[in-house]
């Protein structure tokens, strides 16, 4: 219940934050919304000696359109994602996903940057970002670089984030008018991590799938981009037999943990069921 001791830093700029993280090294952690890190610190599963609070940095907040992309500052909270009319019209899957993350209080503090960057396989946004083909903007001592979400996750709590780097923004290519989407999450109760969840974004043309992208949450030690399943569905009418094949292909890439949510083979099957249901809802929304 009581965290270990640490020194607290509150930089005013990205440059300052990066300098602190680089200089203080491994014993320093960035603090975004704190609702993943602080619970771990309270259980003493994480005991950083330094916390670098990013909440004073103004230019990593905000949501804007830029060309055909939506750019979201890393310190944007889930609550702000839900309230954004821009996102509601351009990338509606984000609001749908935010609403099934945790609870109102956590959503007031939890940030998109925190949710995508810490590498917890239970977080919902990473699979959605893989589904959307998002890119993360990272800033470190040597400057800015971009990494595709689909290339960012390496293992449980292991990402492409380098030492001293922070995510400053998430860049999402807008799926376009008339796209269908759904985030279908099976959970033991509201606010829980997923037993299994599927993110689907697709476009239909002449009754057939023109493009399809699928992300899966919490059914492996990283979020999964179900490329093969999406390929199977492309060009189909989302008929039952093809959907069944796609679900099987999605199940094939899963390797979930057995835990209180259920044994691994149940969670694998649920990935297939969540995908099937997400596809049905995405199809209904597509025009």
């Amino acid at each position, binding site marked *: 219940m009581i965290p270990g001791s640490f020194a607290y830093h509150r930089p005013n700029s990205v440059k300052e934050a990066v300098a602190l993280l680089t200089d203080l090294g491994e014993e320093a952690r960035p603090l975004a919304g*704190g609702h993943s890190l*602080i619970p771990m610190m309270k259980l003493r599963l994480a005991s950083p000696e330094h916390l670098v609070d990013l909440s004073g940095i103004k230019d990593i907040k905000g949501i804007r359109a830029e060309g055909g992309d939506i750019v979201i500052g890393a310190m944007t909270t889930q609550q702000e994602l839900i309230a954004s009319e821009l996102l509601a019209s351009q990338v509606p899957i984000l609001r749908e996903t935010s609403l099934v993350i945790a*609870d109102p209080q956590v959503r*007031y503090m939890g940030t998109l940057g925190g949710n995508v960057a810490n590498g917890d396989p239970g977080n919902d946004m990473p699979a959605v970002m893989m589904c959307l083909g998002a890119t993360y903007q990272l800033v470190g001592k040597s400057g800015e670089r971009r990494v595709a979400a689909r290339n960012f996750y390496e293992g449980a709590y292991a990402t492409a984030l380098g030492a001293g780097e922070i995510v400053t923004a998430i860049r999402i290519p807008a799926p376009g008018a008339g796209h269908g989407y759904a985030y279908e999450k099976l959970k033991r109760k*509201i606010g829980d991590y997923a037993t299994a969840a599927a993110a689907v974004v697709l476009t239909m043309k002449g009754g057939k799938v023109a493009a399809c992208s699928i992300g899966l949450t919490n059914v492996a030690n990283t979020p999964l981009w179900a490329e093969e399943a999406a390929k199977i569905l492309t060009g189909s009418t989302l008929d039952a037999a093809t959907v069944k094949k796609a679900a099987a292909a999605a199940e094939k890439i899963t390797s979930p943990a057995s835990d209180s949510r259920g044994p691994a083979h149940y969670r694998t099957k649920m990935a297939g069921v969540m995908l099937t249901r997400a596809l049905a809802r995405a199809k209904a929304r597509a025009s």
Partner: protein
Amino acid sequence: MSKVQVSLKVNGKAVDGLVEPRTLLIHFLRDHLNITGPHVGCDTSHCGACTVDLNGKSVKSCTVFAVQATGADVMTIEGVANADGTLHALQEGFREMHGLQCGFCTPGMITRAYRLLKENPKPTEEEIRFGIAGNLCRCTGYQNIVKAIQYAAAKLAGVPFQEAAE
């Protein structure tokens, strides 16, 4: 670890303290300021008994360090009552509708409901239940808490409260 200065406003009053950076806001409120309305009910940020209103947001004060709240405007249950000292419609509603039993979840629940009604002054039952999903109660089974919030919503809107037929 050396202590740091924190200054913030709690229930309209400026306060400050010298705390270890690791001091959680809930402990700063309860142990340093003797504001014991918000409670600790768990270790994993689930139960919501510690909920406060921080800069217009419902926040679990057990998952925020006091230092993060420097300069903030914090309201706890002790600050919910009306300016003239009368009970807020929510406090009245919880009593009228029997929305509490042991009282332990009540400060956090009312503080959250306060913000919920500002987010959405006319919530449906489903929206109320979703809106308090971050606050656990072991005594009431939630049904009368929903009624209490509906009572308060009606009172704040100046309309008569209709209890839904069972």
